[in-house]
């Protein structure tokens, strides 16, 4: 290995570092795509159970290979480009919807310092940057371009209306989402996601989780993340009874599937973000010194619960009306988020940051 490193003009340590980055990033990227695949099955299974049905159970044991069968089907289906569509944008839009969701996963810390082969490889995160939340929010907002461009480029009324609604909704809810997150940031004193987790993990008890200190912010973030990911009860972008399928009406085959990979990836990112901000990320209650793999498992478990909540809410609640959506966004969520931030700021000013003596 050292010989090879010398040939490419690197020290052995540099090469090792490079390889570690490659392996880690590949694992995380493949992980997020398979989460999207598994979520399509979970969505169908849970919805079926809630309606006294069995759900897909023909492909593989209990239908576990259904996502694979769907994937093969999507690849072999015909890509139809409608007449009069703006072809370049039409092709670009699915990628624009899916790529931001996958980019934002970069700053999500999955676990504490990975110790493998007797060496500390650093925390399990693609990019441990100091402006984690800022990056996540900035890139995450880009996915609205994918939706509105899909609506615009399809040359279809339904798609255009779906895209318009999606953009209006995402802009409205982004505001209260950011304000809710800000309250947590103010308490943790950092916008590095790893440090936010560590601020909740050091005590090793549930009481350190931000959820107990910021229940309102947690709730606001939950509602806003439903709206941000275009999920029920806010899925106006693909409101079936009014808009056929909304922005993806004219899409078919793998292009259509990429929209859904994007949607489920965004769900996974929002769930991870909520877990990191409010439920202590990889920390395990009463086990402050747990090894990294247990922490990773705990993180996955917490995120799965959140993802199940997304599916659960979708198959329980009816869709709001669009004016109700706007009213809740601007007249309920935003004032609540502002008051919450104000109260947090006042508390911090008068009583000092939590954990300080």
């Amino acid at each position, binding site marked *: 290995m050292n010989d090879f490193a010398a040939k490419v003009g690197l020290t052995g340590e540099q090469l090792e570092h490079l390889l570690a980055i490659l392996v880690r990033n590949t694992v995380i990227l493949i992980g997020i795509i398979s989460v999207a695949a598994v979520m399509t099955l979970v969505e169908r299974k*849970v919805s079926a*159970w*809630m309606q*006294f*049905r*069995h759900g897909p159970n023909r492909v593989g044991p209990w239908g576990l290979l259904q996502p694979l069968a769907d994937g093969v089907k999507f690849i072999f289906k015909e890509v139809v480009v409608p007449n009069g569509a703006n072809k370049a944008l039409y092709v670009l839009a699915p990628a624009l919807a899916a790529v931001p969701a996958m980019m934002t996963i970069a700053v999500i810390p999955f676990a504490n310092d990975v110790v493998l082969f007797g060496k500390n490889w650093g925390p399990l995160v693609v990019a441990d940057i100091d402006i984690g939340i800022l990056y996540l929010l900035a890139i995450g907002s880009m996915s609205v371009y994918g939706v509105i461009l899909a609506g615009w480029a399809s040359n279809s009324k339904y798609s255009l209306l779906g895209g318009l609604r999606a953009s209006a909704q995402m802009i409205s809810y982004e505001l209260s989402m950011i304000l809710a997150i800000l309250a947590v940031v103010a308490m943790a004193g950092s916008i590095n996601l790893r440090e936010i987790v560590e601020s909740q993990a050091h005590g090793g008890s549930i009481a350190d989780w931000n959820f107990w200190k910021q229940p309102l912010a947690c709730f606001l973030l939950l509602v806003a993340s439903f709206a941000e990911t275009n999920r029920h009860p806010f899925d106006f972008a693909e409101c079936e009874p009014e808009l056929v399928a909304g922005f993806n009406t004219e899409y078919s085959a793998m292009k259509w599937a990429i929209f859904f990979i994007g949607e489920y990836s965004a769900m996974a990112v929002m769930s991870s973000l909520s877990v990191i901000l409010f439920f202590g990320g990889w920390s395990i209650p009463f086990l402050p010194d747990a090894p990294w793999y247990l922490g990773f498992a705990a993180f996955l478990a917490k995120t799965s619960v959140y993802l199940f909540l997304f599916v*659960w*809410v979708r*198959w*329980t*609640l009816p869709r709001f009306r669009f004016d109700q959506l706007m009213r809740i966004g601007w007249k309920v969520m935003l004032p609540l988020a502002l008051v919450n931030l104000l109260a947090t700021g006042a508390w911090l000013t008068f009583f000092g940051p939590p954990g300080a003596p």
Partner: protein
Amino acid sequence: MVIVKRKELSLSERLYVPEIVRGLSITFRKMFEKKITRQYPEEPLVKTEVTRGQPRLVVKDDGAIACVSCGLCEAACPAYAITIDGGETDRPIEREPKRFDIDMLRCILCGFCEEACPKDAIFMSDELELADYSRQALVYDIEKLKRPAAAMRRRIEYVNRINDRWRDAPRPPMLVGRDAPHGAHAHSPAAAAQRPHAS
């Protein structure tokens, strides 16, 4: 004019959230309840004597079918699925079908042929599954339509029981007035048996 009185919503109902939690708890509980889907190919269909499947020609115990190729089922068939060519035979009945085809792709399983048949030759079986690779293979001829009477026992008994209900019963009241002058013999059981139901 109907005035719909709107129910006054309580505070918890107007706050959405408690009601949402209630809804969520309901869907969660329902997840574990018994599934009502029937897993069809593994779980066979429930078939009773009332099941009206594809029509079949009953083979009597002497190995012959009862059909005399009268053409009543052909005439009754609303989908024109039945085609019969009659012919003569040396049997005491003298007539039998040379060709009796039912196009199963046309058959709508209405059971009119069963009702029309005066000889109890055709009955609706409990066979419902129908699949083949060509249309021609789904035009069933006599050999394909034959079913031993033993296999159709339940349906035959059921149809007979239904028919017995009106065979010897008093005539429908609507006809009484019109047929009143011949009332003397119209009420005899033999005359009632000859008259088709509600004609």
